[in-house]
């Protein structure tokens, strides 16, 4: 199978993630969509590494995984802290700052 198909799949996953960030209302789900975008990029990276016949794309995917893990730690901490004060994780409820 041509590696280009994997690039299409990756673009599709990235778009699904991006649309999810824009339309979903729960902070946790929005955050999962961001993670999905990062993992779509990982698929692109390893596919390009295969197409270029080099290993560096695969190594980059490891870096991305570590960053994604660090982001989860920080993100869940922030979402938890606002959940404790508001008892809600909907991003529509956080509307004090505007205009």
């Amino acid at each position, binding site marked *: 199978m041509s590696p280009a198909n994997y*690039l299409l799949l*990756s673009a599709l996953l*990235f778009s699904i*993630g*991006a649309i999810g*960030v824009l339309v979903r209302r729960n*902070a946790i789900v*929005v*955050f999962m969509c*961001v993670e999905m*975008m*990062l993992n*779509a*990029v990982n698929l*692109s*990276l390893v*596919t*390009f590494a295969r*197409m*270029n016949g*080099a290993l*560096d*794309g695969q190594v*980059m995917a490891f*870096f*991305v995984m570590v*960053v994604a893990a*660090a*982001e989860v730690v*920080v*993100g869940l*901490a*922030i*979402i938890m*802290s*606002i959940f*404790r*004060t*508001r008892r809600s994780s909907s*991003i529509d409820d*956080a*509307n*004090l*700052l*505007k*205009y």
Partner: protein
Amino acid sequence: MTPLTVPEINYGALLPLLIILGAACIAVLLEAFLPRHQRWPSQVVLSVVAIAAAGVALGVHASGTTAEDLTAVGETNAVTIAGALSVDRPAMFLWGTLLALGLASVLLIADRSVEPGGAIVASAMERAAVGGGKPVSAAPGTSEDRGYGAPDQAPTMQTEVFPLMLFALGGMMTFVAANDLLTMFIALEVLSLPLYLMCGLARRRRLLSQEAAVKYFLLGAFASAFFLYGLALIYGYSGTIRFAEISDSLATSTRSDSLLFAGLALLVVGLLFKGSVAPFHTWTPDVYQGAPTPVTAFMAACTKVAAFGGIARVLYVAFGDARWDWTPVLWVVAVISMVVGAVLGLAQTDVKRMIAYSSIAHAGFILLGAMAVTEEGVSGTLFYLLAYGFTTIAVFGVISLVRDADGEATAMSRWAGLAKRSPVLAGVMTFLLLALAGIPLTSGFTSKFAVFSAALGAGGAVLVVIALVASAVAAFFYLRLVVLMYFSEPPADGPSVVVPGAFTTVAITLGVLVTLLLGVLPTLALGWAGSGGFVG
């Protein structure tokens, strides 16, 4: 199997970065092992000493290397650790700027006299315990009631903010020196993640602060995903992520150009988000308003420096040869940013939000310099970042001093007649606002002159005209605040002006002095900013 070759590491060049990141790790250990009442003094001393030591190391390295050394083959070359970082003249200038701004921010964050006990607290329970409100559950004398600090001492602040700040500073320094896209991405995360946390730590107005943190985090993570996808597409196009090699591949790559353009567009979206350039600015006003003011000062000044340092390097070193393809797009972006910042700034009723919109307009001006791929463009951008950073830090320092019973009085109407209550503070604020507006004899004028003339030299006459109109519009809302302070009657229950402690005084004085010096005697700093170009 081919043997691995050990990359050359130029420790002299990297020393400032290593000191900052090392100090951040030590600060985490201090936080873990010291008793509470010793944490604040030791963290402050560690942060200040580390930044000062990094500054000295940077000074020694910068004065010990010549421009020839930086481009020579061998271990004096600016590019080090296997091509991951490039400590060239612009990187050194930006490191110096970041360290100086970082020092001023540490002082603002560490101050405990303006907000009793410091402005930074982690959770609602502790806020109650340190005296910001009634204790929620604890009876007097229990450990909850004692909260932070020794029992007989003023309650202290959450000191985790110091290691977070040092990590963010280290990330920013890596970001401006990054010589490949992966290093840049990691640095972007290292600088962003601590900032997301720091936004949510305000002692007062917790909901605003936490809301700012959530918004900044979700939008920031979204933007860094775009940056990363851009990285992947560029890697697919050129087979490498090193800036200099990407530049070579622009002429030789056999892959489709749409990979390049899509990748570059996504990459630039991620970077412009960090620089708060409209139309990627929507987080800026909310986060600036919601975050604790000392943290806003750090974020506004240092993030801007890091983001535009990175943008200038990427555009200049990696994509300079494709400039005819991206310049028109960035023109539009710069115009949108200047117009949005200046026009929406007119409608603001909150001082912190107004400065946020002003920062969006300024981001447009800086972009003028950063997208002129010339020596003057680079030096103008660097100078602008230095000048803007110090003015902004001092502005937020002043904002944190105007307070009433609920904390900072940031509503603009509360500032009416402030000159009658505190002529000194109103005078300082007026000077800083004039600098932001770009009046001669302030750094705002010289820096605007530097970037506008660079943009003119790069063929952007129309853009410069639009920029001048936008700065005139923006001057209106700065002057509106000045008029409000001087020519209206103070309300009877108006806010009081806190006499700042030594830390805040030093930070504001530093900002004001640099703003004045760069306006009156800009030659020295302009010489440093123009002492050499990027080495890829």
